[in-house]
């Protein structure tokens, strides 16, 4: 993984802490996400053990609530999103032929805010109780929850969310401004497109979360009454604010996976993506409609029949662009020379799994029927089908697909296939049966159930499936560790179509010695078919300007985290000290002149093996 650096005197640790290189930041996002994925997975296993038999005494009720909340929150904010951000950071600039993202410093700040936010949230478990109000933190459950648990939730997500927002803006600016010559918007690979639309969703949705958390903080820490009905507050407003953010959030989690699958399916079917422009259009429509449907989470709140009907119809409308995408993937596969690599297996398994989640989604969208489904295991089954069958399959597919580019070795395909099949079977075993558990009346978010309700067998089977998934995940970790010797054929192992496969593996610090000239969609494939297989250069070989690394982002994030702890424990002095640290670091950043450094032509030539 050691990229050649101009100043090779830096120690490895210092290099990673100060880096502003989008590839290293991507890798850190990836491992950060994987770490939290493991933690949240362990929490899920503990919950499934508790639910294995009726009236189990394995976990207490309070502990169960805390695990449930931490599992959901961690999986969504600290595992799935950062894993996608890892791929976006690493791959997107390569796909558009850029040397880095638009604001490398901000990029690093976003990463450290995510890491510190994750730490804040997880410290709650050591500091006398994790948040216990569910990942939705509905008021008044959250505003009246005793202890500091929910305060950790509020401040942890606030810090991590600030980082997410920064990264999204960074991606938007990068894609709008930094595409290589010839890379028009309609020649961008689908993963870059979904990164773009996802970033837009983050830009518009996260402010709602920020406000929701702020109001919660006001009520809990500063004696506010936004959600206190006794003092004229309104609790339903919280649900609206949360889901105005929350529904776009689920599209933030699925769109990048759609992008990954589009890349993988066309690569392994050896065909251009069928209906490229329809795919782009569908992505935008999904993003847009994603903002019009939030109240489908609130059918049972009592909004009234007209409101329910409008939101029901709007929700069902999203099935149309989603269906367009499914058919385009199928038609891409149609008549292709399909190779069944692990990456492609995940993509192929995604299609039926996700369709199942989509079907139950439409069922849930029928507002009258939702009175029956709401808050049962039917919902749990539904969102795990879309989140695991969609997002997590996408993450695993991307892991196998891009691993050679990111780390310079290929993951073992045979061990990978074991992983794939175990995970697939475990996943369906765990969650398919939960549909029926929900239909016969098992409520979600309960720590136990009584004997003789007919829940026993299905819960047992569900837990067995969960163990299968855990075994599969361990196989993935083993795969990562033992495949290190597969360093041959890593530059372009899949006969790729897009620009990232035109770089070396591992990628040079400056990505491209000369900015490439893009002549068609699937830029590299076009050169393979119509050129000499190498990208044409859009500029003469010249020295390259690179930004310097900086340690400041860590301290800016640290300052905010200290302030967050101050809020949690209502210690004014600590809040002041933390903010002071942050602003001092920002001040240094503003006044210190830093023009970066240049990589001389001689060194670039040496990297190319020409010197």
């Amino acid at each position, binding site marked *: 993984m050691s990229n050649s650096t101009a100043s090779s005197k830096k120690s490895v640790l210092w290099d990673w802490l100060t880096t502003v290189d989008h590839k290293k930041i991507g890798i850190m996002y990836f491992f950060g996400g994987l770490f939290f994925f493991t933690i949240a997975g362990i929490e899920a296993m503990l919950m499934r053990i508790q639910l294995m038999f009726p009236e189990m005494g394995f976990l207490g009720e309070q502990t169960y609530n805390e695990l449930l909340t931490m599992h959901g929150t961690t999986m969504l904010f600290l595992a799935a999103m950062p894993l996608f951000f890892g791929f976006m950071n690493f791959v997107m600039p390569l796909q558009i032929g850029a*040397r880095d993202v638009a604001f490398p410093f901000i990029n690093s700040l976003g990463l450290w805010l995510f890491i510190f936010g994750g730490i804040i949230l997880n410290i709650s478990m050591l500091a006398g109780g994790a948040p216990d109000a569910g990942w939705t933190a509905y008021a008044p459950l959250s505003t009246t929850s005793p202890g500091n648990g929910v305060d950790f939730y509020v401040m942890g997500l606030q810090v991590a969310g600030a980082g997410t927002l920064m990264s999204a803006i960074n991606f*938007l600016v990068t894609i709008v401004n930094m595409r290589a010559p010839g890379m028009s918007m309609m020649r961008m690979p689908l993963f870059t497109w979904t990164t773009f639309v996802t970033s837009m969703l983050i830009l518009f949705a996260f402010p709602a979360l920020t406000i929701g958390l702020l109001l919660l903080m006001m009520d809990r820490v500063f004696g506010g009454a936004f959600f206190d009905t006794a003092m004229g507050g309104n609790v339903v*407003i919280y649900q609206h604010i949360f889901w105005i953010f929350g529904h776009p959030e689920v599209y933030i989690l699925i769109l990048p996976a759609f992008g990954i699958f589009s890349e993988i399916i066309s690569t392994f079917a050896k065909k251009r993506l069928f209906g490229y422009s329809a795919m782009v259009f569908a992505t935008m429509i999904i993003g847009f409609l994603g*903002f019009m449907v939030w*109240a489908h989470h609130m059918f049972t709140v009592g909004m009234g*029949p007209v409101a329910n009907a409008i939101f029901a119809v709007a929700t069902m409308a999203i099935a149309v662009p989603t269906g367009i995408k499914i058919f385009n993937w199928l038609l891409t596969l149609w008549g292709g020379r399909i190779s069944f690599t692990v990456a492609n297996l995940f993509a192929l398994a995604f299609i039926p799994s996700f369709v199942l989640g989509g079907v139950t989604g439409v069922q849930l969208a029928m507002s009258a029927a939702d009175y029956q489904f709401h808050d049962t295991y039917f919902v749990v089954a539904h969102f795990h089908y879309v989140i695991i069958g969609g997002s997590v399959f996408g993450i695993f597919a991307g892991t196998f697909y891009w691993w050679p580019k990111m780390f310079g070795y290929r993951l073992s395909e045979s061990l990978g296939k074991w992983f794939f099949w175990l995970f697939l079977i475990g996943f369906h075993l765990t969650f398919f049966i939960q549909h029926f558990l929900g239909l016969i009346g098992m409520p979600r978010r309960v720590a136990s159930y009584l004997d003789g309700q007919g829940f026993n067998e299905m819960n047992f089977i569900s837990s067995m499936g969960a163990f299968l998934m855990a075994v599969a995940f361990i196989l993935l970790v083993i795969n990562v560790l033992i495949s290190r010797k597969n360093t041959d054929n890593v530059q372009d192992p899949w006969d790729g179509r897009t620009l990232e496969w035109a770089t070396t593996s591992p990628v040079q610090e400056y990505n491209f010695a000369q900015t490439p000239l893009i002549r068609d969609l699937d830029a590299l494939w076009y050169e393979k078919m119509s050129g000499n297989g190498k990208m044409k250069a859009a500029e003469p070989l010249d020295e390259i300007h690179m930004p310097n690394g900086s340690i400041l982002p860590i301290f800016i994030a640290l300052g905010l985290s200290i302030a967050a702890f101050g809020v949690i424990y209502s210690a004014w002095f600590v809040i002041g000290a933390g903010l002071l640290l942050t602003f001092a670091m920002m001040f240094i950043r503003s006044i210190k002149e830093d023009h970066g450094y240049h990589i001389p032509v001689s060194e670039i030539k040496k990297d190319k093996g020409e010197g």
Partner: protein
Amino acid sequence: MSHVDPSAPLEGGPSKEEERKLKRESRSQLVSFMFMIFITTTAFLTVASDIVPTGFAIPFVLLLAGIQVVMQLYNFMHMNEGSRWINVMIWAGLFVAAMTVAALAVLIGIDKY
């Protein structure tokens, strides 16, 4: 491009064409500035005078505010230059925000629809 130092001093004066453009720009800035003052004055007068009924004054002032926002964005914050994505995103964001506020205004009340 990559090695241009952003802090390097510029040499020489602007070209004739550049000069004409700058002149045109500063004139348009002045005109819109005066227009904005005019709008603001109108808004104040609308509220201050007794002839205008309240039922008219509120939507009218809001309309003026809308015009001001658009002029701010395009004339003083240069939204008409640069990428069209800036336009797409600002308007999409405004649309989403407006939808949300409107829906909340309708959905939170005592009356259920």
